[in-house]
């Protein structure tokens, strides 16, 4: 069965590219353009990984990560952000994200990191 990824990003170009690349890699991809619709998607679907930006309309990336950690603690999260400040990255890891990718990003590298995070032990737990 295909693994399902939720991509939360408000830049249409990035969304389309991620969707295209991840579909090519054999994943099921669902996209959300803001935190609010991401929460709705999380209530109605099961995901194997979440790929999210930090700067999102309505609900910020940090609020969204808190929500996911509280309600879906076993889904791995990868942050994809333009932020390069150490405190932002450290804060994201403190909140429990599994990986942090800075923009501009290499699509091939991203695909590898997605594969690694999906195969992580924590995610194995969520399957059980």
């Amino acid at each position, binding site marked *: 069965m295909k693994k399902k990824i939720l991509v939360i990003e408000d830049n249409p*170009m990035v969304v*389309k590219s991620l969707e*295209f690349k991840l579909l090519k890699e054999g994943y099921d991809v669902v996209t959300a353009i803001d935190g609010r619709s991401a929460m709705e998607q999380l209530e109605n679907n099961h995901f194997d990984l979440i790929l999210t930006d930090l700067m999102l309309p309505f609900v910020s990336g940090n609020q969204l990560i808190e929500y996911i950690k509280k309600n879906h603690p076993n889904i791995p999260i990868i942050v994809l952000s333009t932020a390069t400040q150490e405190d932002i990255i450290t804060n994201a890891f403190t909140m429990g994200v599994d990986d942090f990718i800075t923009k*501009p990003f290499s*699509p*091939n590298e991203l695909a590898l990191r997605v594969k690694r995070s999906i195969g992580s032990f924590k995610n194995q737990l969520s399957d059980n």
Partner: protein
Amino acid sequence: MLTPPYIIDLPSLLEINLVMSLVFFILAISLISLILYLRVHKNFRNQRKDKLEVLLIDFINNYLFNEDFDKPNEINRFIKNQLKTTLDKKVATKQLLVYAENLKGESSAVIKEIFYGFGLYNFLIQDLTQKEWYRQARALNVAYQLDMDIPMDLVDSFINAKNKEVRQQAFLYLIHRSTDNPLGFLDKVTTPLTLWEQIHIENGLKTYEGVPPDFSRWLYHKLTSVVVFNLKMIADYNQYQHIPILLKFLNHKDLEIRLQTIISLRKMEAPEMIPILVENFSKENPQIKKEILITLGEIGLEEQLKSVAPFILQEELDLRVSYLKIARHLNPGGAKEEIDDFKKITMLQA
């Protein structure tokens, strides 16, 4: 053409009134038509842009990630069917820039390949050779963002461009494209650098990946703004080896250069400057005097501060306040005593 009799019979005042009404009516109709035309035209443009953006995203994604994509044929087909007008080329360039901004690694090279494949390089060169400043600036920006080689004689011609935006984009391009001499263009600068341009150069240097230049090379430039900028950079980049040159600049004839020299040396915490500053204090203007006081507060001694007090004039109220603040900073316990001392030294009895 015969004029209807009821118009001929009208009094002349009414006739003028009628003609003017007609003229204004025609003007109003023309204006409304023009607004409507512009609106409709803009809507068509926006619709075309939106449609083309979707097609471009789909095309670029296929080009980037679809191994079965017939690149040569598809690119020709796309040019033939979609990239017909200047607007189309502008939209394609903009979309490729968005990709370049967000993707790196192997994708960057592919994005450049698409740019060349679409024939947008010729479009860019065309823009560079146009008279309109916004086309030149846009082309320079695209070349900078996509890391493209463009004829250097063309870029050099913009180093002293009258338009600030064009000039800034040229600076950014030259810094970004340089491998070993990012500020080499300063040798060709003949018009003063504005503060905003200096900020742009400074920011450009922050993303420069090579070895930072030796800023002392431009300390004898004929333009004050270039010298001031390099004095600032010497301190920002901790080029301590240039302190001896900067010490000589404390006696420079140009006030702006002296001022920046003091600030830079203070930032580098060079105590060798203090005796020169103390000696020069009485001859300096209030702005430089204030910088000297701040410097004495940061890296000087209380005695050195007291030695300049007699040269603070009665009307230099701002300096007197600064002096007392700094004196308190150097000797936190003796505020009252400092004020009395100051009054004695400066002969300023309340």
